[in-house]
């Protein structure tokens, strides 16, 4: 019941906003639909926490601790982003960068994007997972090019083509998976692609085919995660799209794509027995983290900077999943949560900061504390959090990952430390003059909604200091599922 | 028994010499129809040959004996090639001795002689044509070899008669690699016989001509022989194509009797008619390539043939 609500509410929102998206009340409508979705998602989470995994509608949908946690997170960030985007988009409209028609497109596509992500998370069918991922790409392409400037069109084109090619590889991987599954499960009905069924017989699946399938699936979905060397689209799309879109891309879409990779990894590792998938995840993750941290130095655009930071963190999370084992998985899930929350709050403040300064170039943003202290503090605290300063949750997850890596694969620790250190120096040296420095920015024509920023940061802080036992238990169950 | 096969061999060569000009005439007629021009008679090549033979030959003062013997060498090699290729029957005494590689060697000999003769007089056009011809030949030969290897991979022999016999033994099986080989072969055929995407047999435009440039100094009976040799070359290529890709109707080893032979003659004529109109269609539909694009064209033929080999390795039926 809650599950159906989670799936259908955003879809309903899409139709409503496609009709009324240009009206004055559209942002409020957007927020209320997101709120309803969030409530449904929370109820679903509570139910799964109490009664264990659910399988419904002829086994087509499947909820366990792993994905329900992501559903809740997605719904929550979706809600806060909707709240943030209300004043933000209004300011963009006042600046003349958007028209009511474009706003309608934005609102409708935002909900469609949420619907596609929920479908990807909740479906039990690997084929449907692919369809949903593709739908998520398609709905965000138009969001990235919303401003219709040269740069945004170029970014959207790159995004479409790169992710399109990537996702085609994933489809080939899915076909190979089906090819192997058919032999074990038979092609009757639609059972051969159901994850739960595959998981039950994973020992009988043909290892060679699954190994090949995993390579394609990892490359395919990995493109959407932003893993190097297929990360090119990510900084462009983040920098040129509207800020709320950057926030949901970084905070949610990357997670969902990684979720798809992990689901595949569980199947494949169960089948081939050797650690090939884990090794590949570790390799790609480490490469992304190190590469992205060095690219951070060369950035001038504030949103690009944090786009690269997202690549770095997705790399770290992927690496942690590659390490495997209860502790590393626990840390990876925790890092997914805190990264989503922190990164979206950073994008919120960065968006307002560039609105106030009239530019996204970091050289043009100065003295935020003087003009609007809340934005300045938000950016400062967010950056400190994402850099892994102690009281915040990012510190605990990174600490766990580092210690596990030290124990399991000591050779990787220096690389990880280099990535973290370089990223720290690069981001901190850029953020510091933007926040302090001389006053240059103008006050905003419309008061920003900064509640989401501080709610996110407070949650991250809380996860760093005190983790509620229920939540910890939940992570532990999910970590065990991933194995 | 042996006598019969020799008679058959002899008959085949005579037939080839006799109908090769007819084949060229048929292609010219089809082209004219397709381009809605008024068509010359099918027998036009014969008339031209007769006219040329009845004239007195003029030779350049600087011509060496090489220049003079080349037409005979050309004609001779092409007749020999016609004897090797199983156009009517596979049970031929000559065919046993020589396989496809030797056939390519024969064509190469003819090409070398023609090019040397073209340069012999020392005119600009002659050496230009010779250089171009050598370039095309240099590129077309490997492609043709690959096509033949393709076929020999299928049936385990490079001798054309055994290929045909092998093919006829498994008539239902069409190997996918044959498609690639066939396309590559048609491309080589067009290039080697100075047909349209590479060269235009019907023009004497200085800047583009290849084959015609080499014949400029020839006249009368020499020219007639050279022309006849090129008709024979086209005919031979067509027969190689039939042997490799559509060997139906060729009398195979061990089947004797006049009826079979008559049937195979009818089949050959039918195939020539179809192939001629197909060639004319290709020539009508395509535009002539600049000479610098010719290597591209032939490289594609070569790659297609190699691809055929690969596909055979992957998709091989047996």
């Amino acid at each position, binding site marked *: 019941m809650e599950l159906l609500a989670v799936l259908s509410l955003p879809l309903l929102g899409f139709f409503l906003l496609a009709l009324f998206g240009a009206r004055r009340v559209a942002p409020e409508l957007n927020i209320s639909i997101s709120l309803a979705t969030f409530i449904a998602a929370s109820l679903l989470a509570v139910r799964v926490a109490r009664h264990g995994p659910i399988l419904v509608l002829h086994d087509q949908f499947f909820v366990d601790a792993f994905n329900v946690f992501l559903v809740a997170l997605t719904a929550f960030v979706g809600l806060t982003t909707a709240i943030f985007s209300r004043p933000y988009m209004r300011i963009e409209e006042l600046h003349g960068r958007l028209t009511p028609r474009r706003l309608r497109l934005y609102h409708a596509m935002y909900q469609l994007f949420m619907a596609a992500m929920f479908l990807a998370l909740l479906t039990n069918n690997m084929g449907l997972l692919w369809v949903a991922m593709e739908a998520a790409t398609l709905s965000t392409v138009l969001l990235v090019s919303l401003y219709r400037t040269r740069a945004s069109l*170029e970014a959207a*084109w790159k995004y479409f083509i790169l992710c399109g090619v990537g996702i*085609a590889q994933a489809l080939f991987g899915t076909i190979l998976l089906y*090819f192997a599954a058919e032999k074990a499960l038979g092609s009757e009905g639609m059972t051969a692609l159901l994850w739960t069924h595959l998981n039950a017989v994973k020992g009988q699946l043909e290892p060679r085919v699954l190994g090949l399938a995993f390579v394609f699936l990892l490359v395919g979905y990995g493109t959407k995660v932003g893993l190097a060397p297929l990360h090119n689209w990510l900084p462009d799309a983040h920098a040129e799209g509207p800020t709320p879109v950057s926030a949901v891309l970084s905070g949610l879409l990357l997670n969902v794509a990684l979720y798809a990779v992990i689901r595949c990894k569980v199947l494949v590792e169960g089948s081939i027995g050797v650690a090939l998938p884990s090794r590949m995840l570790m390799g790609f993750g480490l490469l992304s983290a190190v590469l992205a941290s060095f690219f951070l130095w*060369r950035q001038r655009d504030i949103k690009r900077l944090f786009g690269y930071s997202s690549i770095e963190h997705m790399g770290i999370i992927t690496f942690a999943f590659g390490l495997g084992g209860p502790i590393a998985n626990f840390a990876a899930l925790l890092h997914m949560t805190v990264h989503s929350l922190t990164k979206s709050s950073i994008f919120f403040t960065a968006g307002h900061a560039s609105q106030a300064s009239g530019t996204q170039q970091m050289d043009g943003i100065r003295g935020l504390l003087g003009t609007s202290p809340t934005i300045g503090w938000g950016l400062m605290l967010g950056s400190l959090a994402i850099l892994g300063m102690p009281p915040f949750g990012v510190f605990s997850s990174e600490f766990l990952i580092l210690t596990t890596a030290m124990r399991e694969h000591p050779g990787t620790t220096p690389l990880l430390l280099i990535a973290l250190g370089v990223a720290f120096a690069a981001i901190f040296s850029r953020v510091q003059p933007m926040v302090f420095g001389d006053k240059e920015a103008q006050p905003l024509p419309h008061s920003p909604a900064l509640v989401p920023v501080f709610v996110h940061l407070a949650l991250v802080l809380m996860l760093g200091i005190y983790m509620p036992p229920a939540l910890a238990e939940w992570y532990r169950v999910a970590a065990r599922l991933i194995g | 028994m042996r006598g019969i096969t020799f008679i058959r061999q002899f008959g085949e060569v005579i037939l080839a010499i006799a109908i090769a000009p007819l084949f060229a005439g048929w292609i010219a007629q089809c082209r004219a129809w397709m381009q809605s021009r008024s068509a010359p008679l099918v027998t036009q090549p014969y008339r031209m040959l007769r006219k040329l033979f009845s004239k007195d030959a003029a030779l350049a003062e600087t011509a060496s004996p090489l220049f003079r013997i080349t037409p005979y060498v050309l004609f001779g090699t092409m007749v020999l090639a016609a004897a090797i290729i199983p156009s009517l029957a596979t049970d031929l005494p000559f065919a046993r001795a020589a396989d496809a590689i030797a056939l390519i060697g024969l064509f190469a000999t003819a090409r070398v002689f023609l090019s040397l003769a073209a340069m012999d007089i020392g005119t600009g056009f002659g050496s230009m044509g010779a250089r171009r011809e050598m370039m095309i030949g240099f590129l077309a030969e490997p492609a043709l070899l690959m096509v033949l290897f393709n076929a020999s991979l299928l049936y385990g022999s490079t001798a054309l008669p055994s290929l045909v016999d092998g093919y006829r033994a498994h008539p*239902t*099986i069409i190997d996918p690699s044959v498609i690639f080989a066939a396309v590559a072969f048609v491309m080589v055929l067009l290039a080697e016989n100075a047909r349209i995407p590479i060269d235009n047999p019907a023009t004497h435009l200085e800047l583009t001509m290849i084959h015609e440039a080499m014949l400029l100094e020839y006249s009368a009976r020499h020219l007639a022989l050279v022309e006849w040799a090129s008709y024979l070359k086209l005919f031979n290529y067509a027969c190689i194509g039939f042997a490799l890709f559509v060997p139906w109707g060729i009398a195979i080893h061990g089947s004797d009797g006049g009826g079979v032979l008559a049937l195979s003659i009818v089949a050959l004529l039918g195939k020539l008619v179809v192939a001629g109109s197909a060639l004319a269609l290709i020539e009508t539909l395509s535009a002539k390539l600049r000479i610098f694009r010719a290597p591209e064209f032939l490289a594609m033929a070569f*790659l297609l043939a190699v691809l055929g080999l690969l*596909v055979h390795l992957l998709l091989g039926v047996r």
Partner: protein
Amino acid sequence: MHLLHPFTVPVINVLNLLAACLLLLSFAMLSRRRTQRLITLFAWQGGILCLSTSLVAYSSGLHELYYSAALTLLLKVITLPLILRRLIYRLGAEWDSETMVNIPVTMLAGLMLVIFAFGLAQPISMMATTITRNMLGIALAVILLSFLMMITRRKAVTQVIGFLAMENGLFFAATSATYGMPMVIELGIALDVLVGVFILGLFFFQIREQFESLDLRNMENLKEE
């Protein structure tokens, strides 16, 4: 195992032949310069897919696959080429041709990709009956060749055709190697492709409005300095 692959020899033959044609068409696409020719070749590819799917449907007795074949016919032979043709007509890009990396080099690279694809499909031959191995190798080769086409082209429309050709390869893999994905998934994929093409159509107009050309060389500003 016998139940999974009840093809008789002639059916395998024809399927192999169609697979070879598909590969040949991919190479032809790689070597064509004119956009219009590419669309025609794309439609041909769709036709071959339709044929091979019906053949698999006929020989395996899975009636679902007839719907797939009909869907292919409708979408890839009729609708998409029509949309693309109208699109380039309205964009005035009918006679666009493009300068590319020289063709033999491209073809050579394509040949390498084919060898790579066949090699990659080889491990599967250990487990499968011959037919599936072959089909997967060819499908993978078609996918990689389309990928190569997307890399070597500079025009937006051609890149999209490359993208669609890649989807053809995927579809071929799905039908020939595994008797098609479940119907719902196939519908979903078809829907995604169709929507994707519509979005790209919109995109072309936006791109041309901003850049006054569909040449992607104009779109190389976003990179690390």
